[in-house]
Structures are given as structure tokens and as C-alpha cells.
């Protein structure tokens, strides 16, 4: 199995993400935003950063790059497993692969901090991450305020697509635990084979850096990929 990590112009967490996946012992390959195909990647990560400098809207320009055409086709044709992190999340909503959108943080500032997030609902994409589990992960973004209208939000929860939520130390989705003004404290969503989150699991790979919960999250994702591959082979 090989995981492709896309470098867009302005991506700045691509190397960190490759390093994290290397730590987990999985084969990786770099994908370039101008590539027209996925070079045989079995799954793809869209890493964090400031693709195209966040000009126009964060993620909007990267969503139109050639590699995204190939990714969109693969998601539709063969349910390509796809994980978006931070700017990757923004690109996925701009590309229409995930619902909702990400707006500027409600306080108007960039925010880099440690944050607790809770798994709202166990997802088949992340076997082993149980509902109610709380992870400590870093955030670093200026445009992370997730938004959708009330009706879509209800549908999101009803379909089990609301995946991660910002919470306080007691695991409660309090408004003061919300770092950016996201609707329903949402930190991550998942739909079909596509999942994305604003926090950075690739930065939380060892205790000495503050947390190894990112290691758990990415391990769960890889485990989901393995299961899927086994299932496909019958």
C-alpha cells in the first residue's frame, strides 16, 4: 500500500506528513499539484499549509489544480480514501468533496495552540477510534471556522458525518472550548471515503512534542485502509 501526499504551491506541512507516515512504516510518495494522475497511490493525504497563499479564499485555488481533477475522479470511481488536514480540509470543501465551508476564525486572529477534540461518532475510516474518545492535538490556522446552515448540520449529524468536535478538559463541547467559532464546535467531518480535520495529527506523533494522539489517529486511518484492502481482495 502506498499513500500519496500532495504538495501544492504553498503547502508547508507536506514534509511533516510524509515524516509522520514514514514513522508508521507505510510507503509514501510525493504527488505534485500539476500531476494529472495519482501514480498508483492507494490513498491520498492533502496536507496543511497555505496553498496559493490563501489568496481568494483558503483552498479555493488549489481545488482547481490538475491533481484535484484526478483525485475527484478517483473518489467517485473507486472511493479513493482521502484525508485532508487543515488546508487540506479547506481544499476539500472548496472542491465539493466535503460539505460546508471554512471561514475566518471568529476572533480574527491566527491561532496556534493545543486543543482537545472528541470523536463524535466512530467512523469505519478510523477503526479503533471509539465514539467519545478525546484526543489532544495541535491547531494552527486563521480560517478554521467551520460553517454550514442548520438543515445541512442536522443532516450531517443524522448521517454520522460529524466526526470530531472541539471539547474542554472534561470532554464537553462548551462554547469556550471552541477556538475558532465553528458551528457545533466541529473540528472534523467525514463523508464516504473522505475525511478531514482542522487539527494537525502529523504534529502529535510523540509525547515529547506535546502529544502522541496524532499517532493514534493516523494509525487508525491506516488500519481502515488495510481492512478495506483485505475486504476488496475478498
Amino acid at each position, binding site marked *: 500500500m502506498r499513500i500519496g501526499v500532495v504538495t501544492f504551491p504553498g503547502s508547508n506541512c507536506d514534509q511533516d506528513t510524509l515524516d509522520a507516515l514514514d514513522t508508521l512504516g507505510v510507503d509514501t510518495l510525493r504527488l505534485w499539484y500539476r500531476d494529472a494522475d495519482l501514480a498508483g497511490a492507494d490513498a491520498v493525504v492533502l496536507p496543511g499549509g497555505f496553498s*496559493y497563499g490563501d489568496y481568494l479564499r483558503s483552498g479555493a485555488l488549489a481545488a482547481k489544480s490538475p491533481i484535484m481533477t484526478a483525485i475527484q475522479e478517483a473518489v467517485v470511481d473507486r472511493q479513493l480514501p482521502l484525508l485532508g488536514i487543515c488546508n487540506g480540509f479547506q481544499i476539500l470543501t472548496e472542491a465539493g468533496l466535503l460539505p460546508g465551508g471554512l471561514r475566518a476564525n471568529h476572533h480574527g486572529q491566527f491561532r496556534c495552540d493545543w486543543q482537545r477534540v472528541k470523536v463524535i461518532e466512530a467512523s469505519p475510516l478510523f477503526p479503533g477510534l471509539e465514539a467519545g474518545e478525546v484526543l489532544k492535538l495541535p491547531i494552527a490556522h486563521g480560517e478554521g471556522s467551520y460553517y454550514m446552515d442548520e438543515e445541512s448540520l442536522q443532516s450531517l449529524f443524522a448521517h454520522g458525518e460529524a466526526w470530531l468536535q472541539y471539547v474542554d478538559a472534561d470532554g464537553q463541547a462548551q462554547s469556550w472550548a471552541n477556538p475558532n467559532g465553528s458551528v457545533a464546535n466541529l473540528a472534523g467531518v467525514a463523508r464516504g471515503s473522505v475525511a478531514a480535520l482542522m487539527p494537525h495529527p502529523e504534529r502529535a506523533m510523540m509525547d515529547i512534542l506535546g502529544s502522541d494522539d496524532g499517532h493514534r489517529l493516523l494509525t487508525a486511518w491506516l488500519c481502515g485502509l488495510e481492512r478495506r484492502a483485505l475486504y476488496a481482495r475478498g
Partner: protein
Amino acid sequence: MRGDEVGLNPNEYESICGIMGRSPNDLELGLFGALWSEHCSYKSSKGLLARFGHSGPHVVQGPGENAGVVRLDENLEVAFKVESHNHPSYVEPVQGAATGVGGILRDIIAMGARPIAVADMLRFGTDEKSHAIMRGVVKGVGLYGNAIGIPTVTGDLGVSETYDGNPLVNVLAVGVRRSDARVGAGGACPGQWLLLVGQRTGRDGIHGASLLASRDFSGGDEDLRPTVQVGDPFLGKILMEATLETVSRGLAAAVQDLGAAGLASALAELCHLSKIGAEIWLERVPLRQPGLSPYEIMMSETQERMLLAVSEENLAAALEIFSRYEVLATVIGQGSASQRLILYHNSRIEADVDPDWLTEGAPRQTVDPSYWDALANQRPAVHHPAPSLARDLLLDVLAHPDVRDRFPIYRQYDSMVQTGTVYGPDHDAAVLKVRGSTHGLVLAVAGTGRWAAIDPYAGGAGVVLRVLAALAAQGAVALGLTDGVNAGNPHVKSSYDLMAALFRGVSDAAFAANVPITGGNVSLHNETQGQSIWPTVMMGALGRHSNPLHPISEHLGREGDLIYVVNPAPPNWNGSVAAFLTTGLSSYPRCDLGNVEKLLQAMREWVLSGIPTSVRTIGMGGLAATLVRMMAVSDPSLGVELTLPDEGFAETERFYNEAPLQWVAIVRPDQAEAADEYWRTAGVKMTRIGIVSSQDGIHIANRHDWSRETLLRAWRSLDKEVGW
């Protein structure tokens, strides 16, 4: 044009005519005006800088290049330097600060090093305008650093009325390169192509260096706004990647960034350091808008540009890299063996100068040895007696902007990208792991403010010792220092003397510690309407950490652990925040420099011995604030039971004393004897001042009690006036 229109005085103009054997034309005069400006030539400070110690066993590159370089291990080298962007940040805070970050990052990249860390060292005034400047500057630092993906890992903040109208924005950057991929501005050869890469050249920032940064503010400076540059971190990022790939593949013979004085400075420096001449075809320079004159093209300070020298055989491969990153790259000239920098525009010669005239030919104020010697002399001291210890003063000290938690600032910076930040901005010094090495780096920064207000010598020495003490507290070997000096108008004798004393203090302390200063920056003319700032130096120290995944702790340990001060200074609170809040400015104490190197080494080895549980350097706010900072990262149930060895005013003077080279150490009871023995053998005093208790907060002998909540609320107080 006249000399004074480009910032040259009549003597300088005369001397240019003498060197050239004729009068310069307008473009040539502009080149001299830019390159001989204070900002580019360091004409007032070079004589002082020459006194610094620049060499040492770890130094690969001293001053003179885009950045100093030190050796980390057998394969990796580290480039680091501080740069100022004070004047632009006053005129346009967000862009001024953002381009300050971009500018120092390009200096690091020009050495072939990949930036891995940024530190911001800021000084602001206290008036309403200063609050707006502070908000803008912090936004600007984040705007560039966050987007380009270099973590801002540590920093320093100071606030005083002296910086009303003259904020200081100094940024330090650190980068890592392979020792087999060295590059610099000095490697170009005759015949090689000169490649201008990055942003198209526009009319922004013309004369930023010579007119904006090299003269005092006089009020009504809005007319200077067009001299401020605008940053584009997105282009900066892809320019960085393309340049580093070109360097790592060995395709670039020389690299020079375009900063102050744009192409004029970049071409002069590259030719001078490479000992070549060049022919430049200015009509080839890609422009953002048509119609720029040769003069404007040479003086523009458009950001996100680099100059590379590339041989004929490597040209196609280099161009292919820039094309892959969609970064514009254009051959604009060719190196020559002539020692002449000749600027053509549509085949017409527009300027013809020797690059050395512009660089080493710049005037330089010499420093008489007897003047230098006298700079260390004691100044009339201002001392204020301390009152007995009082409850509220501690809370006021903790809430002072120089002391309190910088969290409202640094949470606006990405401090974790690149996943190397083991200790980030919530620690005394940053500890970084480095890809490709088992060694890590420690980066400590600090600046003077009050410390240098009355006795700049004491302040300059103190801040050098402050950052080196922080490296020692991590058991790190000091590799080098970088200095950012900020001062007033050098042509005013009193301002110059204060600045010179600051230099002398820095120099003496660095020599005493035997640590080289590998590069830095001088920003002068920080004056508004004849009022100079306190001479202010921002120091950065870089150290090698042998075990970055196991940095020494900064917490209180556990109940029953013993609290010591290693190398306690005599009770003397002068120059401290507490003294300032109580009685106003006073003279920061001078430190005995006789034993510095041995003391730092003893601390470093003690930390590595594993005897202490935690060590933290005493800094702003003295012992009192240092204990609170340790408490903030400890088990919330723990507190400190103090028994200070003095009474009355001396107790106060010990509690708030900010004298350099003192450390708080936490030692387990079963290690107490070993600790005693170690420091007795080393001949250094170690005083037990208390014990870690299960009652949270600070408690002094049943006379004073502050709860943890009270202390942390004061220390973490937000600045409502700033709006955070």
C-alpha cells in the same frame, strides 16, 4: 541630482568625485547614496563592530556574508542572524513586520540553509498609537512566518515610553544546511550568468534603506509610506523551495538576496565578495508595471527576489527548476573579469562603477583605542533603596508587559510546523530537534530595555550573559551569538556614546564567555523629534543540545524537593521591573566578568550530570517571576515555601533582583549532598531558598502568601489597551 537628495553629505559627495575621477551621473549617485547609507554600509557602527570577537572552534562563516554560520555536527551547519525592520514597522506595522521576517529568511536561504526557526524581539511604546502598532506587528510576523511554514519558536517583548514613535522589530532566523552544500554571495566567477528570480520589480520601497531607515523621524512621516515594501509569503515560499533545490543540486555558484537597496546592493555585494565585475542589461529585468527607469529598477526594494550566479552548463537545469515551481527566472547579466559593474539599458551605458567603491569604499567612522577603552568606565550610578517586601508589588511585577506571559502574542504564531519544536515559546529557551542529526539546537533570545537605559555597558553585558545562561541551563554548548543593535542618531555625540558603551558591554561579555558573535544588524536613527530611544540590543544565542528529546525540565519537581539559587547575586534590585515600578529608572548592576566562562561550563556540566531535576535562568522580574513561570508548568497542587536569607529591604532586593548568571534549581533531597559538593568544588555559591510544598502558590515564612490562582491571573493578564 544633488548628494543630499540621496542622503549623502557634501564631504561624501566630494570623496565620490575623487574616487571616480569625475562627477557621478544620477544613477551612479543613487548607487552611492544607497550603498553608503547607514543602513547598508554601517558607516557609523562598523568601527565598533570590528571590536567584537568573531572566531571560534564552531564558526564556519563570520560576519560579512548574508548570515553567520556555525557547525552543528560533521554533516550539518547552522546559519543564523538577526535583522531589524524598525522604521518600516512604524510607518506600516503589518507589512513592515512581515517583510522583516521575509528579509531575514532570504538571508538564511542565501547561505543555502533551510530555515527552521524564527524568533521575534519586539519593543513598543505605551501610547495609543503604540498599541495599534503592536497589534499590527504581531499580525505581520504571523502573516509571513505562518504562511511560509517556519515556526516562530521563541521571542522577547519589552514596553516603555521610550519606544513611543520608535517601535523595534528585530527578527532572528535559523537555518540548517549540509556542509557539502555550502553557498554564499562570494562564489560567482567571470562568465557566469546572473539570474534574477522571484517577484517582478515594481516601484515599491525605493530608497527604503537610504531615506527611511537612515534618518530620524520628524513627525508627518506619511509621505514615507511608499518607501515601505510589501511582502508575499506565498511567493516567498515557492522562491525558497526553488532556490534551495537549485543550491542542493549544486547548480548555483553564488546566491544573494535582494533586501535593502534592492539590485544595487545585491549586485555590489555579490561582485565585491566574488571579486568579479558584471555587465547588467536592465531592460531584461521583469517589471510589474511598464516604464520604470534604470534608476528605479536599481533602487526598488520589491520583496521576494534573489540573485543567483549560474554557470553556462548549469543554466538550463536551474531554469527548469524555477519553471517547475512557476517562479520567474531571468538572466539579467553576466559576471566579468573587469572589476567594473556596468549597467546597460537598451545598449546604453547608464552606470559604470567599481563594486568595491560601493562596498568597502564606503566611509567608516573609526574608533580610537582610547575611546574604546574608556567605554567600560563606570557611569554615575542611580540607585534607589528598596522597601520591605509588600504583597501587591509582586502582582504588579507579574502583570508588567516585560514580565507577563507572552501567550496572547505567540498563540498568533505557528510554533510547531516542521515538527521540531520540543520546547516552544512557553519556555525560557527554544529546544529544537533537527532532521538528520542526533544533536538538537537551543535558541535563546533576550533584549535590553530598562537594563541599558542608564548604564548601557551593564545592560549590553547583562543581556549577553542572560542568553548564554539559558543555553547553559539546557546543558547546551554555545556555538555563537548574533546581535541586533538599535540606537539613536549616531551624529549626536551623546547618542553615539551610549550606543558605543552598549557595544562595549556586549563585546566584553562575549569575550568573557569565549563565545563568538557571528553576525548581526545595526539600526540607527531610532529618534523622533530629537528624542532617542534607550540604546537597545537584542541578543540571540545558539547552542548545540546533545539530547534534544530530553530537555532539562523547568517545573517545580515534586513535594519535598529543595529549591536553590545557583550563583546568587548580592541583593541589588536596581534596573529591575520591581525597582522601576516603585522608584523609577535605576542602574542595572554590573557583573563580575572574571569567571564567566568557567561558571557557564560548570552549569552546563551540572545539568548534564543529572543532579538537578529542573533548572531555570533568572530573568525579567527576578527570582519572584522565575518561580511563577516554573509554577505555571508544574503540577497545580504544588507551591513554594521560601526562606530568603535576608531581612527587610535586602529580602526585597533578592526577590526581584534581575542580575545575570543566576539560576533557580530544583534538587531532590537525595541529591542535595551531591549538589552541595559539586558547587563547593566549583567554587560557586549555591543558596538554599526554600522547599517545594503541597500548598499551592508562594509562601514566605508565614508573612506573605500568594495563591497560585492570584499569581497566574496577574502573570497571564491580558493587555486590554492592546485589545487582547
